[in-house]
């Protein structure tokens, strides 16, 4: 009985001590750097924290995909590394985000921030990534009028505008939902989202 109590106390003291040491030590999540070595290009759901904070906050409950009406959220197995296991991601070419913001509302941990569904707040707070046009692939830049990406964009003339021959130009307020990449009729896609996994203003 006494031995057991001593064991429990020692274990608790060990945990508290290690946590305190980690708190003092600068650059705490040294191993989290490993997490950034993703080989695949993916987006976090809208309102996600910066990658390191996100991995520490997300408890892998799976409710964001359950809330997603568009079924665009998938989960990592081991392909994203052990640290990312069970965390949500979006492959925009397969199914892109429609910016309904339901995942942020249901997220119990704040790993996905709850963002009101208005144009101003979405532009301000959602930073999933940014679209980039490959002019060598894009039909409109080859002289054939297309404009599919512009028509798919949920924030036309805010995130994406079209010019001569409906050539797309990505503006600075692009939130990276990926609907343009999903809609692109070229194979491979001429417009794609470059994920933003670093610092976020949320």
């Amino acid at each position: 009985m006494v031995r057991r109590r001593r064991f429990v106390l020692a274990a608790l003291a060990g945990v508290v001590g290690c946590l305190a040491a980690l708190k003092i030590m600068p650059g705490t999540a040294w191993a989290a750097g490993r997490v950034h070595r993703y080989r695949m290009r993916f987006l976090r759901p809208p309102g996600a924290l910066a990658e390191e904070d996100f991995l520490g906050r997300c408890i892998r409950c799976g409710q964001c995909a359950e809330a997603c009406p568009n079924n665009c959220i998938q989960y990592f197995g081991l392909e994203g590394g052990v640290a990312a296991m069970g965390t949500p991601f979006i492959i925009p070419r397969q199914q892109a985000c429609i910016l309904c913001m339901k995942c942020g509302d249901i997220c119990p941990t704040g790993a996905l921030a709850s963002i009101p569904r208005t144009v101003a707040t979405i532009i301000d707070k959602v930073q999933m990534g940014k679209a980039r046009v490959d002019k060598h692939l894009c039909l409109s830049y080859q002289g054939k009028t297309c404009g599919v990406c512009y028509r798919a964009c949920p924030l036309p003339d805010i995130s994406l505008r079209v010019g001569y021959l409906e050539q797309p130009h990505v503006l600075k307020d692009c939130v990276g939902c990926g609907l343009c990449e999903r809609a692109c009729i070229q194979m491979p896609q001429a417009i794609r989202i470059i994920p933003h996994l670093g610092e976020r203003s949320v």
Partner: protein
Amino acid sequence: MTSHRPKTETHPLSLWRHLNKLRWLTLATVFIMLLCIPAISLYQTYVAAHGYALLSSSQKIFYDGMELLTAPFTDDPTKDLAVIKGNTWSGTFFGLQLSDPLAVVGQIAASLQVYWPFAITALIPIVLTMIFGRFFCGWLCPATFIYELNTNLAAWLHHLGLRSGQHLFDRRLKYLVLVVGLLISALTGAVLVATVYPPAIIGRELYYAIALGGFGSGMVFFMLTLLFDILVARRGFCRYLCPGGALYALLGRYRLFRIQRRVQHCNDCAKCNAICEFGLNPMGDDFGQECNNCTACIAICPTDALAFVVRIRDQPEQGEGHLGARYRKTHGATEQQPVVLR
């Protein structure tokens, strides 16, 4: 040879023995809900977009059945079915957000800060655990549902001549798993305890299987724990390795309600020790913090000698059962033992 068994049907506390049936009902309900919630979430948006008429008749029955559980609380079809959401790891139950204490502890370890809006969602489970002990393990955990069926499978295999493993380890191993799991979570900055905790895995993987079209890598881990339970130790994962069980056991160490043997009614048959999934010693009143209140010992006791009592400590060394042969030999048996009620 005269029988000294008291008449159990007139025993006022014999209702305790039906708790085990109630527990199986609870376990099955939780598991079925974990199957239904992901399935219904596929229809929910469809219905909210006025697609109800397009559902097939069986889908309509399913949807209406699930709506019946939640409709009294909401009218908005987009919010329909939103009152019961998620899984046992973290979810919403009639508007009340609840989380596993391990989720909160793991998150604190991984992010090295307390996010209070999430931390308070574990308050109710923690308080209930401090009152009832490891009740989650025995009554709600979806993995327990599978693990107990797995024990039955091991028993059938035993009938076929295939011996299941009966190794015994140190129960304190799971506290080590908890501590090491939290340390690794802190070092990697990711909530990795979630990937070795069966109820969290089951909640996620059932969603993957139903809505995303296949099991994920967590299911491989869960299958390995099932094999461990059959081949190495009975209920080995819950007994020796589960980090969440360790946390619940620590929280429920001084629980208010616990099972206790009433020595006047015990006949030393030791069926309770044999049935105990966790390998505890109900006949010696040695439950400690490990008991998950599964009530299997109460259900099997032929003399209704086990019951829940309000105590914060076990009462070991009560001695031999008064209906047992050895006690009657030493104390002089009367023709009919008086049944002393508490």
